[in-house]
């Protein structure tokens, strides 16, 4: 067993004697994985999330082989169709196949969430790490900035940021047909730029509680640089918290993205995420024609967010060695 494992073990059990060690040479990560695998409830949601992800990834294949529709191909002779053998989940107001659009929508919804979470975890962890490690004035400045960021209601901040987006690319947004246009990548960047605050706070508190531990002192006295201390020694110990935050973050971002689509500052038609499909369904009198158009995309969002949240909770339990006793 390597020393780093020993250190990790000691830290995560909060200095208590780890009476729950299963085998003499099982590391912390392996133990956590074992605990997670035993959690049937949590694993069920992990599988659901994986299936949703796989379906979205396979969207082009599903389009070509299973449904035989393009997500944007219209059929005006068959609008607001009910579920049938030709269209398993019905059609929308332009006769587009709902199932096809759902799997393509998942690509955008989950893709934006994944990219955005990667970005904001990176920003949040870096800021939190610096604040917690250097403490003092740096901590004060960074955390007050986070306080300010978190005080602005996010939707308003999104509206502000989104309304500005066309200007730096040199477009005159005053043009009558111009609307706030996002592609999935710019949308993910905008969401991430507004959402990293709570991760920074979380990581900072965690680092603050770790940085006076003996293993940090030991590494420091061996001449480890600040950089090495932060990213080789502290980061692995903060990682469990970050992983849980990432899982919960995926759920949160899917919701945020849907909300932005709904108010019209998200992805623009004809491309559609689940949020767009929902938004579309409430236009004019579509609700009267086909309740399916409202129910299905919402259910897809619910299922993925619920799974991400439950998986996050399951991982939190699995990472906590004390939960093994329960």
């Amino acid at each position, binding site marked *: 067993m390597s020393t780093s494992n020993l250190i990790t073990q000691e830290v995560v059990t909060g200095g208590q004697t780890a009476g729950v060690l299963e085998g003499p040479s099982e590391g912390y990560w392996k133990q956590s994985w074992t605990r997670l695998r035993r959690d049937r409830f949590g694993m069920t949601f992990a599988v659901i999330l994986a299936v949703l992800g796989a379906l979205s990834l396979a969207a082009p294949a599903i389009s070509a082989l299973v449904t035989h529709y393009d997500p944007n191909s219209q059929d005006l002779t068959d609008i607001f169709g009910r579920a049938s053998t030709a269209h398993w989940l019905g059609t929308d107001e332009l006769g587009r196949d709902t199932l096809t659009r759902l799997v393509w929508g998942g690509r955008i919804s989950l893709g934006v969430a994944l990219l955005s979470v990667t970005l904001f975890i990176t920003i949040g962890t870096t800021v939190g790490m610096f604040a917690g490690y250097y403490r003092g004035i740096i901590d004060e400045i960074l955390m*007050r*900035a986070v*306080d*300010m*960021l*978190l*005080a*602005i*209601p*996010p*939707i*308003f*901040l999104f*509206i*502000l*940021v*989104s*309304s*500005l987006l066309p*200007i*730096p690319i040199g477009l*005159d*947004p*005053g*043009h009558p047909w111009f*609307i*706030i246009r996002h592609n999935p990548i710019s949308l993910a960047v905008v969401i991430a730029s507004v959402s990293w605050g709570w991760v920074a706070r979380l990581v900072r508190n965690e680092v603050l509680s770790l940085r006076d531990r003996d293993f940090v002192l030991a590494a420091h006295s061996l001449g480890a640089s600040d950089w090495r201390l932060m990213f080789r020694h502290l980061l692995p110990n903060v990682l469990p918290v970050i992983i849980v935050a990432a899982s919960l973050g995926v*759920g949160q971002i899917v*919701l945020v993205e*849907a*909300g932005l689509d*709904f*108010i*019209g*500052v998200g992805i623009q038609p004809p491309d559609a995420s689940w*949020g767009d499909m*929902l938004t579309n*369904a*409430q236009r004019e009198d579509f*609700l*009267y024609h086909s*309740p399916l158009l*409202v*129910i299905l995309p*919402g259910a897809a*969002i*619910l299922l993925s*967010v*619920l799974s991400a*949240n*439950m998986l996050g909770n399951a991982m939190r339990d699995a990472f906590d060695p004390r939960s093994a006793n329960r």
Partner: protein
Amino acid sequence: MLIRYVARRVASSIPVAFGVTLITFLLLHAVAGSFVPGLTLNPDMTPQDVERIRHNLGLDQPLPVQYFIWITGLLHGDFGHSLIDGTSVTSEILARLPNTLELVSTSILLALLIAVPLGSAGALRVGSLLDRVITLMSVAGISMPSFWIGLLLILVLSIWLHSIGYGGLPSSGAQSPIGGGDPLDRLAHLAMPATVLTFYYVAIWSRFTRSSMLEALSQEYVKTARAKGLRERRVVFIHALRNAIVPLVTLVGLELPGLFSGAALVEVVFGWPGVGNLALQKAFEYDFTTVLGITTFVSIFVVMGNLVADVLLAILDPRVKYKT
């Protein structure tokens, strides 16, 4: 002691409020620069005209000067003027604010009235069917887009109910009561948006009450109360619950930004004439100064809300005053 605590808390809120104005202002002006929407689209406009308009709007001044002018106005309650038609942003906000506050406060109140009994019931019967149902509902509640719940409500309460001949609830078109609207009609309009927001916060706060109550029930003073032979009802409601719900005050305060965000979405679903709806409408008109004014106003409002929550907590829980 309380006064000193309040003073300290107020003092620490001021930099945050200032920082918020700095963030929103810089965000807007660093990106937008001297941009005025629609200006370059008019072919009759000479470059001199464009310069004159920018000068009149103060956009040719250096950024710090612009910020100084803006913040001075802010301190006098002037949140700027529209880039499009020059109307006062403050008056626009004040016209819409009562509607948003009506929606938000109704939802907070209803959510607390429902969440506290639900959460306590769960904590008193851990693992029971009731407890499981409450837990499941609260996890599902935070996993649904609020506007989806809104749409489902419209589907059932407006469309379906109407189609079977029961009238149904109105899904949009709320009028301001100041404009002489009928209070009963107002209530009918409020019902669905408030339900949506309430549902979400019941989900969060009932879970919180549950764990907070579980913690309180395991405390020594509860044991003492039981040992003294007090009736269980008194132990639970007077000794445990009172301590369990105090932290909720902070939580409600911390949720304020989320509440205003959520309210903005719900306002859009139901055409509720609130501040969020206004901001969105102005964003689509590229009326940057108005969007900036609204965002800043709502943020400062939230900072003050947090302050009130903290002071309230200090009054309810004397221990707070002595910490930090």
